[in-house]
């Protein structure tokens, strides 16, 4: 096992009590080998974790073809219930994009432009709900170890999503965690499907997220 540099979180992440992780199966406990990145974040930041990762969830609520409806449990449609009001926590980590990329096949209508628009709506809602910008961590969509074989447009399409997430972090003043870079080219960090991080991948994710920072273009 390599030496991981212990994270040194920015001040806005310290002294908090609760954190919610919001995303897909990479975040969901059932798909992530324990202890997953959410558990590790809890230890690193000394906060209680609520895991709102849902398997197969994309962020955008774009209508699909031929269903003509958004995918259920998409992040855009569930963030109010899962992250605000009584569900509000001190900190929120958003790790999305994988299913938006995978679902962009067979005539689907998902795009990075629509992803960015829906993501902005989520961020605007979180700010209105009382989260400070530096209490929100946006994570770039993790690298696909399978060569983006299930993503039309391949890695280039993935980078469009990551650029969108970076732009959102800059324009909204949120924290940004480069979880794409943390996993890129690390073939030892994945489960056999080449999409879900294994234990090493979860360790790398936790370090990258705990080191989230304000970025500029």
């Amino acid at each position, binding site marked *: *096992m*390599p*030496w*991981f*540099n*212990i*994270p*040194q979180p920015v001040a806005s992440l310290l002294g908090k009590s609760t954190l919610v992780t919001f995303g897909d199966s990479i975040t969901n406990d059932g798909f992530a080998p324990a*202890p997953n990145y959410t*558990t*590790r974040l809890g*230890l*690193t930041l*000394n906060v209680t974790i609520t895991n709102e990762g849902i398997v197969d969830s994309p962020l955008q609520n774009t209508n699909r073809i031929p269903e003509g409806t958004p995918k259920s449990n998409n992040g855009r449609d569930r963030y109010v219930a899962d992250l605000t009001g009584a569900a509000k926590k001190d900190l929120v980590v958003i790790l999305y994009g994988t299913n938006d990329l995978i679902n962009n096949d067979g005539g689907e209508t998902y795009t990075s432009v629509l992803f960015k628009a829906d993501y902005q709506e989520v961020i605007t809602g979180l700010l209105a709900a009382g989260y400070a910008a530096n209490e929100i961590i946006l994570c770039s969509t993790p690298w696909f170890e399978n060569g983006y074989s299930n993503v039309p447009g391949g890695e280039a399409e993935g980078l469009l999503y990551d650029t969108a997430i970076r732009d959102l972090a800059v324009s909204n003043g949120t924290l940004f965690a480069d979880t794409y870079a943390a996993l890129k080219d690390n073939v030892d960090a994945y489960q056999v499907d080449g999409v879900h991080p294994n234990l090493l991948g979860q*360790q790398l994710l*936790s*370090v990258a997220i705990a080191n989230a920072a304000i970025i500029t273009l």
Partner: protein
Amino acid sequence: MLKLLGRGMSPAKPGVPGPPFSMDNIFGLQLWLDASDTTTITDTAGSVSQWDDKSGLGNHCAQATPAEQYTTGSRTQNGLNVLDGVSGNNMDGVNLGLSTYTIVSAFVRDSNSLTNNTISKVSGKNDALFGSDTDTVKDYAGGDKITSIDTVTIGDVAIAVNTHSGALATLYLNGLIQGTASYTMLTGGASYQIGAFGGFANQDQALLEIAVFNRVISISEINQIGSHLSSKWGV
């Protein structure tokens, strides 16, 4: 005093590489055992009777009983000498009198059987870093206070760091936080012991390097030490 002020305090000159890392670059070093430095090891036909402290404070560890002595000169890690342990091997150190401290321990386990302690207070009732028949590392004080969430792989170098600030303890393994706990330590001042202790005799691992500081060193300093040990011992 001059030596203390000189430790790593000078600003780096542009274009001039700084001095290589050394454990005593970190302020507060009380004990530093380095198996790669064979000049610090006293042995008879490979059986180690004394392991000298490199902190400069003379806190050497010793074992006079041949049956309990580690072996040197028989095994290497990344080309460097290590102390090889088998059941019952241990060494006695001195009482450092610390209630706030950092312990760093680099080791290679050969099995997960029984205790596989690296360093503890005498009789193992406080400050122990060990396995207890598992593939984990534990902070022990009359009971398991912190058990690592990550595991130690047999044959791989592991680097454990344990900090205590009064009652607050934190355990790191290979640069990942493993947990924190708050508890009252059992004894305030007992001598340190390396390896097997009390009724837990097994010691099936190689010891590479151990250091103790009289303060909770910073995360930056832990990372500096971890990166150095990782490179040195071939993690």
